[in-house]
């Protein structure tokens, strides 16, 4: 069965690239351009996992992650950060806030699929 993935990123290009890779690997993809949109998508139906940018207008990734965990509980859906933030402080904040994996941009198919595999999401 296809895994449902929500891609949250304010860049249309990043969403398009991620979608292409994920679909080629058998995932069903939905998109959101910021954290608020992503919350709305989740309220309509939770995806299996979320690929999440950090810096976005309206609601950023970490605020979204906290809201998501507050509203839907600690366990699901799994969240994998995918961001240009590439220092230990951000990584630790993401993981302690409930993200399962962390991708530092730029990414390619190998990194994305590798990280999803390690996170047990494939």
């Amino acid at each position, binding site marked *: 069965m296809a895994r449902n993935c929500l891609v949250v990123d304010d860049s249309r290009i990043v969403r398009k690239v991620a979608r292409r890779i994920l679909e080629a690997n058998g995932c069903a993809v939905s998109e959101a351009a910021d954290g608020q949109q992503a919350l709305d998508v989740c309220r309509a139906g939770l995806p299996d996992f979320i690929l999440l940018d950090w810096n976005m207008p309206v609601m950023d990734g970490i605020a979204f992650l906290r809201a998501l965990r507050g509203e839907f509980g600690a366990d699901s859906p799994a969240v994998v950060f995918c961001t240009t933030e590439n220092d230990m402080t951000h990584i630790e904040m993401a*993981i302690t806030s409930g993200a399962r994996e962390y991708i*530092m941009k730029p990414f390619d198919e190998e990194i994305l699929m590798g990280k999803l595999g*390690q996170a047990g999401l494939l």
Partner: protein
Amino acid sequence: MTIPLSATAFATLAGLLKTRSGLIIGQDKVYLLETRLVSILRREKLPDLNALADRLGRPGVEPLARDVIDAMTTNESFFFRDDKPFQHFRLQALPRLLAARPPGTSSRIWSAAASSGQEAYSLAMILAESKALIGDRKIEIVGTDIAREPLARAKEGQYTQFEVQRGLPVQMLMKYFKKEDPNWRIEAAIRQMAQFREFNLLGDLRPLGRFDIVFCRNVLIYFDQPTKTRVLEAMAAQMPPDGLLYLGGAETVLGITSRFAPLPGERGVYGVVTAPAERQALAPAWVG
């Protein structure tokens, strides 16, 4: 490159690589010579590979020959590559090894084509995670490679952002790495668990000493069959009867040597077959 590679020049280059590093370059891989040696041509101000081959035929060119050999190696590696072998090591091989060795003895693990060190450090991180099991026993990790540049990087333990995202779970990155902008460096405690040195697998293995566990992954694929046999049999001679060998996904001992036999139900893990007289039994000592 306009002038095509002459048959003699090809024979010189391919011959050097085969005798010195075991690397087999077929006629269909001439493009590899072209792409990988282009920076040496530029540095030496040589017009093409024919001129390089010609230069290599003269005396006093050992440093150049070494550079050619290094430049032709494929150093691709990543942390916890293929995952399965490392799981097997952590869950099966390591507990068995510790149970089989009396306290106070030390054990040795060899990363036989270590490249830039990801394999050796993956093993070191597993050992660090298994501290409770290991106690105060000493386990040495030795990483060797023929190529000097990746070895130097292994010693530094420094990796690019791309490299720390290949195979390395973020938990391990957080626990064992520090950012040294723009790279990431594996922490000193892990670095100290592995030592790296230059070593050619075609050479005499005996000075390296004995190894309980050998990771020889993704290097035999570059050798021809007689070379594979020679290297594997020399390795077996350096290992105890319960020694274990890990090969890469595209490598096997089958049809190459009977000094190792696959562990039943495992892929890529081989046990030493003790005495030639017992070969018919084909059961590695490790299983029995």
